[in-house]
């Protein structure tokens, strides 16, 4: 069974187009290396590249062809490992999920480390406080009684209830976009609450009361001011603020 020739949309034609149109772009990067200088400094780099490339491709080009000292974390390069969250034109994004054409390459593209976590070198921040907050919400399935012989049953509807928050890749884009977190490093931050939500609303889990008590703390969920920065920042499209609201509601109603 064969079908006739594939229909071509304009988008498909554009995606397949040969003859790449290269453009020249300036990247303005906030550099910081305390081994050399105590203060950060903005440095400009000019590159000629395909605007359909990723911002991460541009950083790699700078590092590999111009300045090997430029330092950043990266791994998977397609938005699944969470290594390369950074502020691009003032907004938290993953460098590997942001195409150059989408961040106005006519003007210099600014790149700096995410906020609220200590910068160690260039775009590398100290992630330990972030992971500590994650660990503090007990991010693992808590059950009582004997384990079943086979799998625990869960209806497709119950599975769907917490699907959104299972997508989290712990990149810290949400937490480091939160004004409350910037001003109060003790606040758990959106990512930790997202991961608490993932278990609180899992029908198999029996540890919700414990997690809710942890988040009832004065540095817990009530610090959220519903600014929606986190939802906007999430590269996985998680409705972070909504998840936080659901945790707040669960604290009031004790229903989850």
């Amino acid at each position, binding site marked *: *069974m*064969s079908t006739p*020739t*594939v229909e071509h*949309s304009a*988008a*498909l034609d*554009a*995606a*397949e*187009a*040969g003859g790449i149109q290269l453009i020249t772009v300036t990247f303005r990067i906030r550099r910081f*290396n*305390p*081994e050399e200088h105590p203060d950060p400094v903005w440095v400009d780099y000019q590159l000629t590249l395909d605007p*359909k490339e990723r911002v991460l491709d541009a950083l790699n080009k700078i590092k*590999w062809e111009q*300045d*090997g*000292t430029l*330092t*950043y974390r*990266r*791994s*998977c*390069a*397609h*938005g*699944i*490992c*969470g*290594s390369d969250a950074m502020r691009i034109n003032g907004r938290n994004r993953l460098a590997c*999920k942001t*195409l150059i054409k989408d961040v106005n390459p006519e003007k210099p593209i600014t790149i700096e480390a995410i906020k609220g976590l200590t910068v*160690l*070198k260039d775009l590398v921040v100290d*992630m330990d406080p972030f*992971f500590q907050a994650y*660990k503090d919400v007990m*991010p*693992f*399935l808590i059950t009582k009684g004997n*384990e*079943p012989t*086979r*799998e*625990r*049953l*869960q*209806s*497709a509807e119950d*599975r769907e209830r917490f*699907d959104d928050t*299972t*997508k989290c*890749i712990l990149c810290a884009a949400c937490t480091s976009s939160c004004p409350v977190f910037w001003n109060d490093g003790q606040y758990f931050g959106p990512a930790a609450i997202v991961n608490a939500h993932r*278990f609180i609303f*899992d029908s198999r*889990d029996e540890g919700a009361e414990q997690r809710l008590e942890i988040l009832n703390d004065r540095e817990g969920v009530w610090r959220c001011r519903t600014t929606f920065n986190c939802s906007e920042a999430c590269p996985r*499209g998680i409705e972070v603020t909504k998840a936080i609201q659901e945790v707040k509601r669960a604290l009031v109603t004790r229903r989850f």
Partner: protein
Amino acid sequence: MQIHQYDTVIVGAGGAGMRAAIESTQRSRTAVLTKLYPTRSHTGAAQGGMCAALANVEEDNWEWHTFDTVKGGDYLVDQDAAEIMCKEAIDAVLDLEKMGLPFSRTEAGRIDQRRFGGHSRNHGEAPVRRSCYAADRTGHMILQTLFQNCVKHGVEFFNEFYVLDLLINEGKTAGVVAYELATGEIHVFQAKAVVFASGGTGKMFKVSSNAHTLTGDGQAVAYRRGLPLEDMEFFQFHPTGIWRMGILLTEGARGEGGILRNKDGERFMERYAPVMKDLASRDVCSRAIYTEIREGRGCGPEGDHVYLDLTHLPPEQLDAKLPDITEFARTYLGIEPYTDPIPIQPTAHYAMGGIPTNVEGEVLRNNTDIVPGLYAAGEVACVSVHGANRLGTNSLLDINVFGRRAGIAAADYANANEFVPLPENPEELVQTMVEQLRESTGTESVGQIRKELQETMDTNAMVYRTGDTLKQAVEDIAALKERFKNVSIQDKGYRYNTDLLEAIELGNLLDLAEVLAVSALAREESRGGHYREDFPTRDDVKFMQHTMAYQEVAADGSTSIRLDYKPVVTTRYQPMERKY
């Protein structure tokens, strides 16, 4: 320099490393050394599922799974190991579910299962629904679930510690040497047992589904210490990478009904695999795609790709079952997979070969003897359950089954044995390597050499190979290795020196690419992922055996590769012609 002492040290924190750590931490004092924060590991990029004959949705049997694995591996699989993996697969999936993994569910609330390439009912009759999955982010869920359970069990991680040497003393494992990325400090970890779980080597190719970090670090460290590497010529090229970028689009897309089409819109896999069609094994699909392209039926202005067509599937099905890959198509290609076919090409994906182990995860130092205290699991290892071509989903299975086995075996060994004394100046090799790179004033750049390596590998050692192309690859790699001696880095500092890190990684890739090319040149037959146009058939008389490559060091310090061969373990299945 700092010296630490642990019963068990695990190198790597992807699926295999963390699965091992969950076991060994409960049994022995364990440290996990990882180049990346654990959740950055590339297990998280796996999409389609993990096969196990749960028979939740239709009749299935672990023996059928074993047969498919052996056939998929073109009979180079060690059948005793495949049998263990497929039998233990069922518990491995149930264990993950009990740890909290949010699998997609059936109407009855059981773990749902879907079709996957090469997995069949009753020895090849028809595709079977065997892959347990969580939408198209199964690897992500496995990685997160294992990390969550590491947190639960208090696993001790040393994040951003890069292991650069293995210490063997008196013929036994004594520990490892690591470089701390944050400070540039060297750390010696004395350990009774060491488990390598450091992943694959896919960055030696240009179009690759692999993370930047997959540079064969564990394989290279073991190889330089005189241990063999098994079956390195067998590298899997996944049929459906995003055109030019190589980003993986799961085989689960074809499991859900997706179709490969050429420029005429033809479902060309019907010609290559009449029964399994688009769900033939990956090596078969990748060769078919390149044949279409070579014969002028490729798509686009340059005719250099084909399409993965999902447009006939309901949008609700794509949203529920394939949300991530459809988003990749939108993000990176700007197309709408509801209505547009997705331009794809084969992408370097998985190393079937690696550090040879037995079924307990113990590392072999030759065909029969082990290195006491040394273990390996996951893509870094070669058990061999994948033979000449891995079946889709069997890598997630491999890391869970053999990660668990290695973790238990390593801890048990550590509890039953004493520390081996550290060799004199244990840090010496690493110290020298790091200082030489930092002080080098050479003129060659890491970026340039890596680019040329990836180009020669893509041109000469990919889906189609010949004696001539492989000789070219060997020659190119030798020249690049020579130039690498003259490489220098710009960052001379100690804090987060990723310039230095990338140089060391490139050194590893060069060594391993050479082993791949030399092993492939010697294998004058076609089997699974290794296809020689000059020897297009399988030769069971000469080559029904595993390649074992050793580094030989001459008196003047120059190195060469010595090849040896190891018999395949055959239990139930005699080699047959492979048809899908």
